[in-house]
């Protein structure tokens, strides 16, 4: 009954795991393979189209960064075991609120942004609170908010301005410190230097003659990278990250072990709302306007990016880096098809196909991890 011999000798029934198998159970694998495949494809087919020139790279990087911002929130929430289908409507709603506060009510832009953030995070908290208190699937609760928020996004501007697009935000945001954090660009002098040195193209005529075609890194990209790093560190290097996994893996088991599951889930709903608002604010500052149809279908795109990144729809497993790679694949393909001159509607075909492939791969990987057959 001592079991000491058993403890010293290694168990003969445990087979050595092959390197491939070890790599397979990393959640990011699908994202890495997919990203390599996508880049290879476009390098071969669209290299001469300008996709890999400075302005081309900036083009798909910005689109990917947009996907990344909402994918980080959706990823952490999905690992915690919940969905948020109201992300797209939240983007439209947040943008519209900024426009109404700053243009219709003529408040300073920074106050408009701050109040919008508070409102949207509060709505995220309400989403979470309803899910926790009622025990309903988050799918249904956030589907309700998808319609409620979209409805208000169309109703308010019509009521106040008799139109569904509110413009003029660029002028109002001129010189505003907080607007710069979302809509500004950094590294302008560096890109000017690259332009002068002939490393990147410069405009050859017009009133911007001599300026580089890429005149700085948009803050949108900085936000995306910041959120990815924050999300990754939070998930893998902190106690709270372990609680996120535990809450999504088995909420009852987590509760038995003393994990504050409700708090974790509520905070993740709030974080998702925060990410959506960051997306909306960057978009409004870039376009200078807010439209009632902004953010349509973004909730699904975020979820698809997360699933391509290896997260399980059932929660408890996934990776922020994977989700970011999923977003990158998205951005590159969406813009790449344009550069390659392919009919853009085919992007949706690609979307559906890659989603199906990713889910099948993930299910297989889950069986590998848990040893089911």
């Amino acid at each position: 009954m001592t079991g000491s011999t058993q403890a010293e000798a290694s168990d003969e029934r445990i087979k050595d795991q092959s390197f491939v198998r070890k790599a397979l159970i990393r959640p990011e694998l699908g994202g890495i393979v997919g990203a390599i495949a996508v880049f290879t494809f476009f390098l071969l087919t669209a290299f001469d189209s300008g996709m890999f020139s400075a302005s081309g790279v900036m083009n798909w990087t910005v689109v990917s960064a947009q996907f990344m911002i909402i994918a980080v929130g959706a990823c952490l929430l999905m690992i915690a075991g919940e969905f948020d289908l109201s992300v797209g409507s939240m983007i439209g709603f947040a943008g519209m609120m900024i426009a109404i506060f700053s243009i219709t009510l003529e408040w300073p832009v920074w106050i408009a942004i701050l109040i919008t953030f508070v409102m949207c995070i509060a709505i995220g908290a309400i989403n979470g609170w309803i899910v926790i208190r009622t025990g309903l699937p988050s799918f249904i609760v956030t589907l309700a908010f998808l319609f409620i928020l979209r409805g208000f996004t169309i109703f308010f501007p019509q009521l106040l301005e008799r139109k569904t697009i509110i413009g003029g935000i660029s002028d109002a945001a001129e010189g505003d410190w907080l607007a710069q954090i979302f809509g500004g660009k950094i590294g302008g002098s560096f890109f000017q230097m690259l332009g002068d040195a002939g490393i990147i193209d410069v405009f050859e005529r017009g009133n911007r003659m001599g300026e580089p075609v890429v005149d700085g890194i948009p803050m949108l990209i900085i936000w995306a990278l910041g959120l990815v790093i924050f999300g990754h560190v939070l998930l893998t290097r902190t106690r709270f990250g372990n609680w996120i996994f535990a809450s999504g893996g088995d909420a009852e088991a987590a509760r038995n072990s003393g994990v504050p599951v409700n708090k974790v889930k509520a905070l993740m709903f709030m974080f998702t709302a925060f990410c959506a608002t960051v997306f909306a604010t960057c978009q409004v500052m870039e376009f200078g306007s807010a439209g009632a149809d902004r953010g349509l279908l973004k909730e699904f795109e975020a979820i698809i990016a997360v699933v391509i990144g290896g997260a399980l729809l059932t929660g408890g497993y996934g990776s922020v880096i994977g989700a970011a790679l999923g977003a990158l694949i998205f951005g590159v393909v969406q813009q790449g098809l344009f550069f390659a001159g392919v009919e853009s509607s085919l992007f949706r075909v690609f979307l559906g196909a890659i989603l199906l492939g990713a889910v099948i791969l993930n299910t297989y990987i889950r069986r590998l991890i848990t040893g089911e057959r």
Partner: protein
Amino acid sequence: MTAPIIEMKNIQKHFGSVIALAGVSVDVKPGECHCLLGDNGAGKSTFIKTMSGVHKPTSGEIFFEGKPMNFQNPRDAMEAGIATVHQHLAMIPLMSVSRNFFMGNEPVKSVLGMKFLDQKKADEITMTEMRKMGINLRGPDQAVGTLSGGERQTVAIARAVHFGAKILILDEPTSALGVRQTANVLSTVHKVREQGIGVVFITHNVRHALAVGDRFTVLNRGQTLGTAKRGEIEYDELHDMMAGGDELAKLVPEMGKAAQ
């Protein structure tokens, strides 16, 4: 004889008009394995839930290390050192063994004033504790889902012991296991007992109880039918007590008829 760690005296628990426990007394001493036997509905689960602070007794007294205790909730009981390993394990299959081991009690280290998970420490402790229990892991990052049912029980037990349990309540730990896995869990119980921890082992399998138990208490319809020491009681006696003498007598002739 050493003083008991926990003493439950004449515990009654009523749920509305239903009397689930009608005066049950049990005590657990350090380093002993006290088996709680009983058929389904005998009140085993209600009793251990009272012990672990989930239910408050309607009447009766609980003494913990000689002092009267009044647990308000499971956290109180856990902090006092009463750990329960449930039938439905508090384990998450998709997470690694070390992440499961420290779930809710993660070690942290400070880097630049911020608290980060101390993964290295968690991994080392997990490997050491599991080796003590006779389980060699492929690595601390092995997912719990790849472990067998018996090994998962052992992880849960090792975790409770590491976090300072004085009383370990095992709720039907062997009910869903095969023969070999059951033997592993029973040997784990033996190792835990050697560390001076009092084990409460709930089962309706008399054979498993006799294999590790020091004392046996049989519950029937919310009442104690007495506590017996190891060697003072036989397999058949325990078995009859569990079914409650009369009923078994009635059952046997019918079974005899069926066999003919």
